[in-house]
Structure formats: structure tokens, C-alpha cells
């Protein structure tokens, strides 16, 4: 059960990181992030199932591996492009605007992206063929863990390692950290702050694209999937301490676990119908009792 939680948590983590990266650099909650996730996922379905790669469950292993890899890359680039465009078009001019104006714009961007998804991909849910076998990896006392679930973790882990390296050790990562701590000071160190912010949005979007493709391995996506999923991932980011990368992953895995135990243990858990209530109950509880989250630091602003 913990492993199933890990799988769901992995997707949440990729999305939660997007919220936390952007918040870290601009103190902005990009409400459109969940919708970028959905749009990237929908786009990925057309790559995999549609005319481009035309993968089906009878494709050769090589075809599946190649097609999926390409889809990950394309969905990541697509998510990156959409997310950094949102920053460029909407948020950039609002850098020194009041918080409320930015918040309203972010909510507006969420609706806009959602409606773009709706216009292009209509109201129907899209899915991809079962490319990864649903066969059991192992089975412990009736709890089965399947290959497709394992695959999600297998892809997420190296992505997280790569991200950590990027932020901790590269020049671009240093620019991101400096900008998030003090953008003006960063600018007079010779950092191109606008480019650093664009890069951060692109990175967040790329993670959403990868997350969405992974999500498709097990679930289907509709134009409004990003709303709930985004809120859950946002909760994870807040739970871990918004702005804190490790926190976002930790929060996401915790929420994945809570969901898995809640939905999977048939004997005593409230069950699927209650999952969202529990998750948002957690969100409210953190905001009230520990707004800095598990790993966040207390700041004068409280978040």
C-alpha cells in the first residue's frame, strides 16, 4: 500500500515542485499550473495514440520505449513553453503590482488555459493504450504492485535527482537561488533576472509535462483534470513548506500515502469518496496551525 502511495505521490511530487519552484522565485502561486499539467497531458495523448507515434498495446517493445521517451521529451518541452509563455504574457508586467492583482491574474490564467484545453480537446477524457504491462511486479499478502505503477516511480526518481543537481550545483541553479532570495541583489551580481524567472517557469512546466505523461500511464485526462490534481499538488507543496523542494516531494509522497491507505484499505478507511475532503482538510489544518509547512522556515509573513 505504501508503494501504491509512492506511485501516486510521485506524480503529485512533479506537479508540487512546479508550484514550489515558482513560489520560491516570485512568491506567486501559479494557479494555472494544474491546467498546464492537463493541457500537456492532453497534448501527450495525441502524440502517443494519435497520428504521430501511433502506439498501441501491440507495438513492439522498442517502439514503446522510443515513442514514450520521445513523448516525455516533447511533453516536457510543451509544458515548458506553455508555462513560460504564461509568465511572459501575464505575470511579467505585474512584478511590482499588488498581491491581489497577481492572485486574480493567476486564477484568470487558470481559466484561460482550461478553456484552451476544452476548445482543442473537447469535454471527453483522453487516455493512452495500456503500453506498460499491468502485470504484477510482486504480490504481498494480496496487495499487488504492478509494472505500470513501478514505471512511474522509475521515471520520477532520476528526474528528481537531476532537478536537485540542477538547483544545487549549476550556474543556472545558483541564479535561481539568488533570485529567489533577493532579486535586486541578484541583478547587481550580474544575473539576468528575467531570464532566470523564465527558466524557472519553463522548468516547472517541463515537470508538469513529464508528470502528466506519467499520469496517463494509469489514468485518463480531461480538460479540467488539472483543477483537482493541481489543488492536491498545491496542498502537498504547502504541506512540505512552500518554496522548499525537498518539502514538496515529501508532502506529495505523504499525500499519496494518505490517499492510498484511505482508498485501499477496505476494512476501516473512509474510502475514495472522502479522499478530497481529507486532503483539503489537511490543507486547511496546515494553513491554520503550521503555515510554514513541515520543512519550511518561519518567515515574518508566515508562509
Amino acid at each position, binding site marked *: 500500500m505504501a508503494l501504491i502511495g509512492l506511485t501516486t505521490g510521485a506524480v503529485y511530487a512533479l506537479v508540487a515542485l512546479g508550484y514550489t519552484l515558482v513560489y520560491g522565485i516570485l512568491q506567486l502561486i501559479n494557479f494555472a499550473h494544474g491546467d498546464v499539467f492537463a493541457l500537456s497531458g492532453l497534448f501527450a495523448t495525441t502524440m502517443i495514440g494519435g497520428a504521430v507515434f501511433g502506439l498501441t498495446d501491440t507495438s513492439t517493445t522498442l517502439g514503446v520505449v522510443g515513442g514514450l521517451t520521445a513523448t516525455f521529451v516533447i511533453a516536457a518541452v510543451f509544458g515548458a513553453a506553455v508555462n513560460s509563455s504564461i509568465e511572459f504574457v501575464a505575470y511579467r508586467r505585474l512584478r511590482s503590482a499588488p498581491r491581489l492583482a497577481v492572485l486574480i491574474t493567476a486564477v484568470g490564467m487558470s481559466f484561460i488555459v482550461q478553456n484552451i484545453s476544452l476548445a482543442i480537446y473537447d469535454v471527453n477524457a483522453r487516455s493512452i493504450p495500456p503500453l506498460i504491462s499491468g502485470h504484477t511486479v510482486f504480490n504481498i499478502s494480496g496487495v499487488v504492485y504492478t509494472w505500470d505503477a513501478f514505471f512511474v516511480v522509475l521515471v520520477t526518481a532520476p528526474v528528481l535527482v537531476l532537478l536537485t543537481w540542477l538547483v544545487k550545483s549549476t*550556474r543556472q541553479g*545558483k*541564479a535561481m*537561488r*539568488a533570485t529567489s*532570495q*533577493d532579486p*535586486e*541583489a*541578484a*541583478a*547587481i*551580481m*550580474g*544575473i*539576468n*533576472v*528575467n531570464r532566470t524567472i523564465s527558466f524557472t517557469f519553463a522548468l516547472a512546466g517541463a515537470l508538469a509535462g513529464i508528470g502528466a505523461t506519467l499520469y496517463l500511464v494509469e489514468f485518463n485526462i480531461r480538460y479540467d483534470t488539472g483543477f483537482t490534481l493541481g489543488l492536491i499538488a498545491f496542498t502537498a507543496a504547502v504541506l512540505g513548506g512552500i518554496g522548499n523542494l525537498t518539502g514538496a516531494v515529501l508532502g506529495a509522497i505523504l499525500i499519496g500515502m494518505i490517499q492510498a491507505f484511505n482508498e485501499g484499505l477496505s476494512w476501516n478507511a473512509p474510502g475514495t469518496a472522502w479522499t478530497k475532503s481529507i486532503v483539503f482538510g489537511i490543507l486547511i489544518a496546515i494553513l491554520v496551525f503550521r503555515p510554514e509547512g513541515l520543512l519550511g522556515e518561519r518567515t515574518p509573513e508566515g508562509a
Partner: protein
Amino acid sequence: MSTTAGNGQVILKLDGVHTFYGTIEALKGITLEVHEGEVVTLIGANGAGKSTTLRSINGLNTPREGSIVFQGKNITRRPPHEIVQMGISQSPEGRRLFPHMTVLENLEMGAFQRKDRSGIREDLDRVYGLFPRLAERKGQRGGTLSGGEQQMCAIGRALMARPKLLMLDEPSMGLAPIFVEKIFEIIGEINSQGTTILLVEQNALMALDAAQRGYVLETGKVALTDDAKRLRENEQVRKTYLGEE
């Protein structure tokens, strides 16, 4: 205009610079120049526009009117990161260290645009030589340093860019008198090693001692400019800024 104690050519020239914060006109036509090799100081009361002058030069506040020329290039509307690359760095008002980075990381950020690893190493040693306290504290986070240590770190960080023009905004702020002396000593040392310095100070006495020329700002305008020595003797300056009768 004024006599030139500095030997070199004009390295920086501001001509009729007007800078605004929203509708507030903070600079109302500042004209000044800095020659290569000089220490020039800007003094003036609180709110006179000293920091805003530096923020106009470094690109954080783009002037609405007027021009700023550095080494023959018009930098009036260039973004801050390009201006750093051209050779201007600074220790800003309020120090502005990166609070979650260590002293060493902060110093390294100062060299962000440089690629010459060995040169960066040299400059790091030089900064540690100037401020041995920073070497002792290199693993400590910027946000947890004492005010004086932060000031040293901010100056050191500005030096790490190996600038042609170093701008210091109130480097003596918050320092104990003994450290103030030390800072001015170091300013002299940095200057004698060939760096041109534009120094903003509340401590007009020390600043005029360290500088060759000075500008007195008053509500966004240059009220007076002269040789540092002569400003020091000036009746008006003595009354208003040196607290002498």
C-alpha cells in the same frame, strides 16, 4: 567645473539625470563625473537622492531623462546584469546579502559573471586578506552574520566582480568606530590597487578625508561640488554635514 585630483580620463558621466519612483521625482537633474583612479564621494542629508543616484547608474532604476555614460558607452537604459558585465559593481544600501547562502557562496555570487577560475581564487584570497573575519566565518549563512560582518561581506562580494568602478553605499553604516576606521583604510587600499570608487556616505567627515572630490546632494540636485579638501573647509558643508559650528 571642478579641479581634478584623479589623474585619468572620465570613466563615468551623469548628465541631467532625472529618476522617479512612481510620481515622486527623486533625482531632479543630476550631473556629475568620476575620473579613472579617483575616489569620489556623494554626501547629503537623508533622502537627498544618494542611493537613487547609485540605483540609476546600476540599472535598477532607469532614469526618465538624462544620460549615463560609462567608459564612453551609454548605459542609461541597459539592464543591471549588462552594467555589471561592463565593470560596475557595488555594495548596496542595506547590504543585501543572500540570507540563506554562506559567506563563501555570497562572495562567489559576486563573481557570477566571471569565468577565470584562477582569478576568482586570487580575489577570494584578497578579500579574505582584507577581511580576515570573513575567512573565519566562510561557512556561516549571510543572514546570521552581525551587521558589521554583513557589511564586510557585501564589500567583499562587490570586489569579487573585479570591477573598474566600485560603488559603496554607506559602507560605515552600523559599524563600531574602530571598524569605520578600518573600512576607510580598506577603501584607500582598494583604490590604491587601481579601482575607481564612488562612495556614498553619511559620515561626511571620513568620506571627505578618503575622497579626492565630493558632491553634495540636496533634494535630488547637486548643491555643491569641489575638491574634497575644499569642501571640508566650506562653511556651509561644515555646518550642515559635519555638525561643526
